[in-house]
């Protein structure tokens, strides 16, 4: 059996930040990711991030990803790619399958789970037709793989993901025919909706997709207005000439490893559903296992990076790599940056939901 001090699972923004912080403190870190390239979903975030200077605001996600990878290289962090973490046993042993060929168990003093989240789907007749896909999937295709999955897009959902991907589809040369939002008000930042609207894309609030039609692929979609009980209003159907329907209906934390390991679950609907309970330091109910990023509640890449730093620092501190005072200073600074991102009319609800998890008394 191999042994490492800290094993970080998932090399997205949260996992990378956690690995960097733990390594900077002096811990020997192994970062594993099932993909052939590190960075998680950062390399499809081609827009400039919000926040302030210390959050790297104004820098595009792709460039933040490159910076993090360069730093990981400088710190000589051990990275295993094409490495799937399949289970955690006895609170310390991570079972990893490398290159789909070789089973390895790594005994870790601390494990940081940064597995991310997966997009939700919405069910409607025709939803399984090719051409119906997650908004994030379309974003992956256009920004990472440089192929347009379609020319005429219907976006379902107006949260930041739906709006940002709509904008990026326009940038990639597609025509976004409409954005529908089931709620009576649009969800995402107004600055995002404004740039998509001034590009001529219509928004339909209190509307949803009723049906997708097509033989081997989406050929058209019907949208419909919803009443105040979210029921379709007959006679308000509109047919749209689209070949692609993107679903931006939120994400669900990828919690399987945590729960299989025995981490205590908690339900947080606002943060995406079942999440592992964790304390302020990002430790779960199993003291050797920490969390960072969307697995601990779905937010955004900038919050994931701060949470990663908090988790990495906490894990290193618990191993004795930093003294109490250094830890307190570093942790408080990261937490303060984090709370700044969870402020205002958009952030406050997430701040409250996070506080409810941390404040939840166990047993």
């Amino acid at each position, binding site marked *: 059996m191999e042994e490492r001090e800290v094993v970080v699972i998932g090399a997205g923004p949260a996992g990378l930040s956690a690995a960097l912080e733990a390594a900077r403190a002096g811990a020997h870190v192994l970062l594993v990711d099932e993909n052939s390239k590190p960075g998680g979903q950062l390399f499809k975030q081609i827009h*400039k991030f919000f926040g*302030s200077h210390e959050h790297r605001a104004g820098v595009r996600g792709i460039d933040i990803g490159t910076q993090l990878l360069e730093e990981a290289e400088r710190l000589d962090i051990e990275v295993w790619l094409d490495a799937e973490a399949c289970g955690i046993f006895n609170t310390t042993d991570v079972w990893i399958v490398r290159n789909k060929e070789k089973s390895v168990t790594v005994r870790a003093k601390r494990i940081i789970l940064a597995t991310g989240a997966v997009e939700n789907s919405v069910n409607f007749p025709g939803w399984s037709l090719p051409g119906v896909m997650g908004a994030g999937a379309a974003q992956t295709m256009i920004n990472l793989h440089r192929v347009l999955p379609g020319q005429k897009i219907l976006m379902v959902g107006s949260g930041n993901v739906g709006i940002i991907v709509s904008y990026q589809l326009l940038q990639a*040369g597609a025509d976004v025919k409409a954005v529908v939002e089931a709620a009576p008000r649009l969800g995402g930042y107004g600055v995002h909706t404004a740039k998509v609207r*001034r590009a*001529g894309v219509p928004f339909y609030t209190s509307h949803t997709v009723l049906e997708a039609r097509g033989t081997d692929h989406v050929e058209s979609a019907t949208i419909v207005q919803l009443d105040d009980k979210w029921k379709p209003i007959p006679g308000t159907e509109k047919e749209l000439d689209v070949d692609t329907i993107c679903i931006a209906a939120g994400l669900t934390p990828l919690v399987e490893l945590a729960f299989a390991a025995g981490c205590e679950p908690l339900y947080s609907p606002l943060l995406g559903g079942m999440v592992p309970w964790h304390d302020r330091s990002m430790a779960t109910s199993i003291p050797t296992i920490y969390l960072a990023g969307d697995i601990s509640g779905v937010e955004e890449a900038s919050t994931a990076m701060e949470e990663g730093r908090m988790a990495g620092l906490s894990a290193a501190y618990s191993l004795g790599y930093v003294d109490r005072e250094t830890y307190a200073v570093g942790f408080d600074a990261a937490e303060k940056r984090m709370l700044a991102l969870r402020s*205002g009319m958009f952030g406050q609800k997430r701040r409250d939901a996070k506080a409810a998890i941390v404040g939840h008394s166990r047993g």
Partner: protein
Amino acid sequence: MIMMETKDTYEKGLKITGAPSLDELHASPCYQLPPKERRALAAVIECIEGIPCNPCETSCPVGAITVGDEITNLPVVDFEKCTGCGICVAACPGLAIYLKKYEFKENLSYIAFPFEYLPLPPEGATVQMVDRYGEYVCDGTVLRVVKIKRMDRTTVVHVSYPNDYYERVVNMKRLPAS
């Protein structure tokens, strides 16, 4: 009749149409249209929701934009200090800032707005100017197309357009693929 309906819809505002209505903008301390008598370009910000973000403030070389300690405060431009340099236009992650000047020459106003689409218009081209809803308003003439490294792949397009649409115009229509 159609016009009436359209206008009605527009007044429902940012969370319905996706674009801020003029009423919403006028009610927000963030939005200030540069007075017609002002001689230089000035930054106009349409960021009325209090999102956690402040590169507009930190990018301004003369301290003309204030957000403050709480990064969810609304940004406010001080026209006394603003030189119209345009650094904030490309620094704003939300693409919510443009520069404007009323009547920079006979009957023509001036706008410099962020533009992240291809193809870019050539200087001297006639382009279709749009309002906050993407509706065609009037033609404009491209004066400059600024694409420099510091702006990190956000191009700023400078256009002149008729004074009559000074407030209504905010950007241009995307050009068909070449």
